[in-house]
């Protein structure tokens, strides 16, 4: 028991935490963590050379835990914003189940543990890369960009785009064009994905004081930028096939998916204001998740088939 709790005990305010293990697990943002693990796995699979399966799984776990740790640090810092937004008000800190100090300790310990584990298991370049990613998400994005600029998720999106590069670096110990292409796909995918959500949650972001693009530059400008990013994303998504590290099947999927992103972005651009915008924006948001998942699944599946057949 801490001194503070002992003091509380003497003054009659003693209490023990009511937090369940599930509350701590929720601090890790499990859905984000699973997406990170999935994209990192793709990075591991497309990397040339081989890695012992146990070490590959261990590296993947370390990357996933590192992502979870940065999620806990994000929840620690953003507890005030989370409390006023409906989507995040039930998170463990605003719900009163975990104190901010407990979340901070949890995030810091897991950050250190995940970085050291990846360094020992894979290599120290990958470990350092993971440390930088955690720093980028927790400090550069969460503490600096998120509350200060409508470009928050554009620049901050790099943190979500690094995991496949870390997976690739875990095998090779370096950065190559292939891993940079995987980074570029997620990096350019992030703005249309999050701005589609921001168009649906304008009031909530306004109330929380988060300067998202629709709140600062307006919905019209946001819709134009969504289309612009989708127009760049579509050809970038095809690059793995064009550069020869993905099959033609991937190429077909990427072309079709990119066309879908552009078509839905045009619908968002053309939709009337107000309630008419909800449906296309929601469609784009969910399609963008499917697009990224299918692209990375096709890349991973192609590599698995190539290795099994080869």
């Amino acid at each position, binding site marked *: 028991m801490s001194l503070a709790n002992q003091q509380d005990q003497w003054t009659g305010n*003693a209490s023990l935490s009511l937090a369940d293990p599930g509350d701590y697990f929720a601090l890790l943002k499990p859905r984000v963590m699973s997406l990170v693990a999935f994209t990192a796995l793709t990075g591991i699979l497309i990397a040339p050379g081989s890695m*012992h399966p146990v070490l590959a799984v261990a590296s993947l776990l370390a990357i996933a835990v590192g992502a979870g740790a940065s999620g806990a640090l994000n929840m620690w810092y953003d507890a005030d914003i989370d409390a006023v937004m409906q989507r995040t008000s039930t998170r463990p800190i605003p719900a009163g189940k975990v104190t901010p100090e407990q979340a901070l300790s949890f995030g810091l310990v897991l950050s250190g543990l995940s970085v050291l584990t990846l360094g020992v298991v894979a290599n120290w370049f990958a470990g350092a890369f993971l440390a930088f990613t955690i720093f980028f998400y927790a400090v550069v994005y969460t503490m600096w960009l998120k509350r200060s600029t409508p470009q928050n998720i554009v620049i901050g999106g790099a943190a979500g785009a690094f995991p496949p590069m870390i997976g690739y670096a875990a095998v090779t110990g370096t950065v190559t064009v292939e891993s940079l292409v995987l980074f570029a796909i997620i990096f350019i995918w992030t703005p249309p994905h999050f701005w589609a959500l921001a168009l649906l949650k304008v009031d909530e972001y306004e109330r929380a004081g988060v300067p998202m693009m629709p709140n600062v530059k307006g919905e019209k400008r946001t819709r134009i930028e969504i289309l612009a990013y989708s127009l760049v994303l579509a050809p970038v998504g095809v690059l793995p096939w064009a550069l020869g590290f993905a099959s033609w099947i991937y190429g077909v999927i990427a072309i079709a998916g990119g066309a879908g992103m552009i078509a839905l972005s045009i619908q968002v651009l053309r939709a009337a204001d107000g309630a008419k915008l909800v449906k296309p924006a929601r469609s784009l948001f969910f399609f963008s998740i499917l697009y990224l998942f299918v692209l990375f699944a096709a890349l991973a599946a192609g590599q698995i088939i190539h290795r099994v057949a080869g």
Partner: protein
Amino acid sequence: MSGKPDKDASGDGRNDTASRPDGFPETYVPTPEEARARRRRNIAIAIAIGVFSVFFYAITIAKLGVGVIERPL
């Protein structure tokens, strides 16, 4: 220390200090709900430590490979 209460904040007498000679409770007595939550956390920590130990054992074997049995005596 000033400000010592006679009754604890829970109101159910679990941590009542009035009857104790030094005015302080010897130990804090958690509510049943707190005790259950603490037990669940303890079990989770035990499982995590167990998994972590097996995890690093497997990593060690995987990294050392046949070197494990080829060490000099």
